[in-house]
């Protein structure tokens, strides 16, 4: 697509509509006028469908609205049919805590005692490649407004990041900007950043993934929904003025692959103003508290096109907007551009007429501009059957007259063809068993040090130190802990835990199992803190849906995730799909990032990951097998990706979680840490370095020490058992049928302490810290 020229005169819509806008009357009078539907990303069949819905050609404004709303990013046209599984595979038990499910701005989960939590993760991949700082910053801004528009106070953010190789030149352009953007925006909003991921892989080199998660807390009665109901209610646009930024961002940026010789796309990336967003948060929370909001929607992708059509179709179906009332930063914007603009920090509220004055007063207090731009209107029965009626005027001329449901919800749905790629068998047959393994103690030692210093396993502080993790004063655990934990309320002691995970290497080897492993890891990361997993969100990052191999990966991953959620009995409450993550014809490894939310009844009982006392016995929970397909060892030692990912046993995951949750509640463990990338060796190093507590490890007999130390078998964790609780802990594991082996004891305090792996090697913590923590500073300064 070649529409992103810098000068407006070349803009296909602007040129076709200037000087006066294309009206409904003009559309009726000129049915055969050529329209730039193809340039706007619509397929011939989609354009024909629009003409059929309207019984005439669309006006240029209507065409703009349909094109952005029917884009892949907004309509989920390639994924919708498959995503239905998340609903279809939901049991009554899974619905028990679900207050709002898929389809709203974000899912809402009842966490008890009158509190609810809403959370969601979204991608901002393509904008972050074009303009790393602003792309990542506005990704945070967008997800925060989603959470806010549910009625919740945002309480934490997390970010799940994927980049090309750590030493690649373009990674040095993209990563620092993305991290600074997330920090610059999130820090200024006063939201603690409590965790996430940083992963490097060749497949992301032309297409980084920037996924942002936000969680919010509300009382049950504060729940708000995005709908415009009540004839005569006023539609108020508030927040930042509308400008020319991000026009067409949705259809152009999110739905198209980067070509190396394509036109400059910078103008399609939005620019963020976190200060305005902070005011918008505080202002909106005050509006909620005063009961002045009948319906609310944030303006994100597709801007006013999305907000007006979604609010109207979710409510009574009728809305009349006077588009010329929209406050503009650039007075020369055309109505089509105003409808498509993705200017940030804007919200739309539906307000009862008698409340408008108080609404405006609160906005004025926060210096937030607010303008009545329309109202909810009555809809005739026949219009209702067509999908409601959204009417938009520009200087007293009708430029849009559409059934809003056809814009927002009745876009095309494609059953894309999918087929298992021919290379999948070869990849799986390439068993890592053939790779040379370290045998001697010295080789084990060298492997361990190389592993902990590798870009995917090393200390993330260079990144996470740029994020405020303390603001709001309720951060109980934050990175590098397995999950972030936030205190919800001091009086009740309620807390929530959040983790995001995905190992794209596993998913590449087997998308069904890989998606379940992502779910299992996030679930386990929440459980090791002592929290009971309650709900799932996801951000499904894949290549082009027009590639049958990618579509096969996608359908397998969705099926795996839906089946896994059913088995673990935790519902998917919402999420996001990001397609077209590829460079040329090379897609990223399938990356279904899974976020799991858990709840702690008494957050002071949370279990941290680090050993914090000497003399506690260390136990390894779960079964270790010879599993190296997709492992970090195969990557670091041999640059190898092949074979099968670790076995998935969700029943074992559930039993392990039951033990970890009970042990935390009963105060049986001093520390617990999930085993995943890098296996036992990595987990031991991280638990020792967290508080500089050493350990002596006796590896179990009967298994090759290399396998014990570096296998990435799922369903495992290490715990340090609290003094005097060994017997109680052993009994707990027996009751839940969890495999348990005592593998050592904590010993020695301070940087001079050692990690001794008996019979293999002895490592000073100071040396381990140096190896583990110097990699990112060395690479990024």
């Amino acid at each position: 697509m070649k529409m992103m020229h810098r000068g407006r005169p070349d803009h296909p819509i602007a040129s076709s509509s200037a000087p006066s806008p294309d009206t409904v009357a003009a559309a009726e009078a000129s049915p055969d006028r050529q329209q730039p539907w193809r340039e706007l990303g619509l397929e011939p069949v989609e354009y024909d469908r629009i003409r059929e819905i309207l019984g005439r050609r669309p006006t240029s404004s209507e065409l703009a609205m349909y094109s952005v709303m029917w884009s892949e990013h907004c309509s989920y046209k390639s994924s919708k049919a498959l995503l239905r599984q998340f609903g279809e595979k939901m049991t009554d038990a899974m619905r028990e805590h679900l207050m709002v499910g898929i389809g709203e701005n974000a899912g809402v989960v009842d966490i008890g005692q009158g509190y609810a939590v809403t959370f969601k993760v979204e991608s901002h991949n393509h904008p972050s490649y074009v303009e790393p700082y602003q792309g990542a910053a506005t990704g945070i801004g967008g997800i925060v407004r989603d959470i806010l528009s549910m009625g919740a106070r945002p309480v934490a953010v997390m970010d799940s990041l994927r980049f090309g190789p750590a030493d690649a030149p373009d990674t040095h352009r993209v990563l620092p900007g993305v991290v600074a953007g997330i920090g610059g925006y999130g820090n200024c909003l006063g939201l603690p950043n409590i965790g996430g991921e940083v992963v490097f892989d060749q497949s992301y080199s032309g297409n980084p993934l920037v996924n942002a998660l936000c969680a919010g807390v509300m009382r049950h009665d504060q729940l708000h929904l995005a709908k415009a109901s009540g004839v005569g209610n006023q539609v108020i646009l508030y927040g930042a003025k509308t400008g020319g930024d991000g026009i067409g961002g949705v259809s152009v940026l999110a739905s198209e692959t980067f070509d190396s010789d394509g036109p400059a796309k910078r103008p399609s990336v939005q620019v963020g103003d976190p200060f305005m967003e902070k005011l918008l948060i505080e202002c909106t929370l005050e509006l909620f508290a005063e009961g002045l909001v009948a319906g609310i929607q944030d303006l994100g992708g597709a801007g006013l096109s999305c907000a007006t059509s979604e609010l109207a179709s979710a409510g009574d179906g009728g809305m009349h907007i006077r588009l010329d009332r929209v406050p503009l930063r650039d007075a020369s914007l055309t109505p089509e551009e105003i409808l498509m603009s993705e200017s940030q920090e804007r919200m739309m509220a539906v307000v009862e007429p008698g409340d408008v004055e108080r609404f405006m007063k609160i906005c004025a207090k926060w210096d937030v501009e607010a303008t009545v731009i329309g109202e909810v209107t009555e809809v005739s029965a026949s219009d209702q059957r067509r999908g409601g009626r959204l009417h938009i005027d520009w200087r007293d001329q009708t430029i849009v007259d559409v059934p809003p449901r056809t814009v927002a919800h009745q876009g095309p749905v494609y059953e894309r063809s999918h087929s298992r790629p021919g290379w999948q068998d070869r990849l799986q047959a390439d068993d890592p068993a053939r790779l040379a393994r370290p045998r001697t103690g010295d080789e084990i030692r060298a492997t361990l040090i190389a592993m902990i210093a590798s870009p995917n396993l090393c200390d993330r502080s260079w990144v996470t130190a740029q994020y405020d993790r303390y603001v709001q004063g309720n951060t109980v655990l934050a990175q590098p802990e397995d999950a972030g934990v936030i205190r919800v309320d001091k009086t009740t002691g309620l807390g929530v835990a959040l983790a995001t995970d995905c190992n794209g290497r596993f998913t590449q080897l087997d998308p069904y199992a890989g998606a379940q492993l992502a779910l299992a890891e996030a679930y386990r990361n929440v459980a090791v803190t002592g929290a009971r997993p309650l709900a799932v969100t996801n951000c499904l990052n894949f290549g082009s849906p027009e590639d049958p191999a990618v579509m096969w990966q996608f359908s397998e991953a969705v099926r795996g995730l839906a089946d896994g959620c059913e088995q673990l009995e935790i519902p998917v409450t919402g999420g996001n799909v990001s397609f077209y993550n590829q460079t040329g014809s090379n897609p990223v490894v399938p990356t279904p990032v899974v976020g799991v939310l858990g709840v702690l009844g008494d957050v002071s009982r949370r279990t941290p990951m680090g050993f914090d006392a000497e003399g506690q016995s260390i136990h390894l929970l779960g079964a270790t097998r010879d599993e190296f397909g997709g492992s970090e060892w195969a990557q670091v030692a041999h640059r190898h990706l092949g074979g099968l990912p670790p076995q998935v046993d969700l029943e074992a995951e559930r039993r392990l979680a039951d033990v970890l949750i009970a042990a935390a509640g009963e105060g049986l463990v001093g520390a617990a840490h999930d085993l995943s990338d890098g296996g036992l060796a990595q987990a031991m190093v991280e638990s020792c370095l967290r508080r500089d507590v050493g350990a002596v490890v006796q590896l179990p007999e009967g298994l090759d020490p290399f396998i014990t130390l570096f296998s990435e078998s799922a369903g495992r964790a290490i715990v340090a058992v609290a003094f005097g609780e060994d017997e109680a802990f052993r009994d707990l594991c027996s009751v839940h049928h969890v495999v348990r082996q005592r593998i050592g004891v904590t010993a020695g305090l301070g940087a001079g302490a050692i990690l001794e792996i008996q019979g293999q090697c002895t490592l000073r913590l100071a040396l381990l810290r140096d190896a583990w923590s110097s990699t990112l500073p060395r690479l990024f300064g």
Partner: protein
Amino acid sequence: MKIGVVTFPGSLDDADARRASEIAGAETVPMWHGDHDLAGVDAVVLPGGFSYGDYLRCGAIARFAPVMAEVVAAAERGMPVLGICNGFQILCESHLLPGALMRNEHQRFVCRDQRVRIENASTAWTSAYDAGQHVTFVLKSGEGGYVADVSTLDRLEGDGRVVARYLEVNPNGSLRDIAGISNERGNVVGLMPHPEHAVDELCGPGTDGLGFFISVMKHVANGSVAR
């Protein structure tokens, strides 16, 4: 004993400053940037954050907020005023404290548990500490590098007005490792690290920060405050 905590548009750690004051046993009064009086409070905290977005220069716009005229006048009469992080920047912009805070030397925002040495335990905000005591606060800032000309630095050192100094790591390039300073009278203190984030074992690195709030309560109780 009432501690007022000012909220500017863009303030972030205002609720945390109120919470810390309350844990120490004070009554807190939320104050708004547009207020024209101090509502009878005994001490004022200017909290951390990004007042007015800090788009011009940190604290440069907040200095002109209506409430600041009252805060400056009260500070000159001897009322205890603590500026934390952005609040420290505002105090410097208001000329209640000398010097300025610059972009961190390494150009990045930094959030870390910071070891600090309390150098002066005789100000209105630090009497609960011992001089030379090592404590851990939270540092989280992008523009925390303290700078002043040599004669100002020498005067601050000579008069004992360096209230706190960074230990182990100088996280932002502050001259002479300065983390906090006071005015001559010792009632106005500016500090880059956040004591209000070290008041609760569960949600911060220990409780070393409570001393600031306990100190000011003691100071007020001793009657050494002019409103």
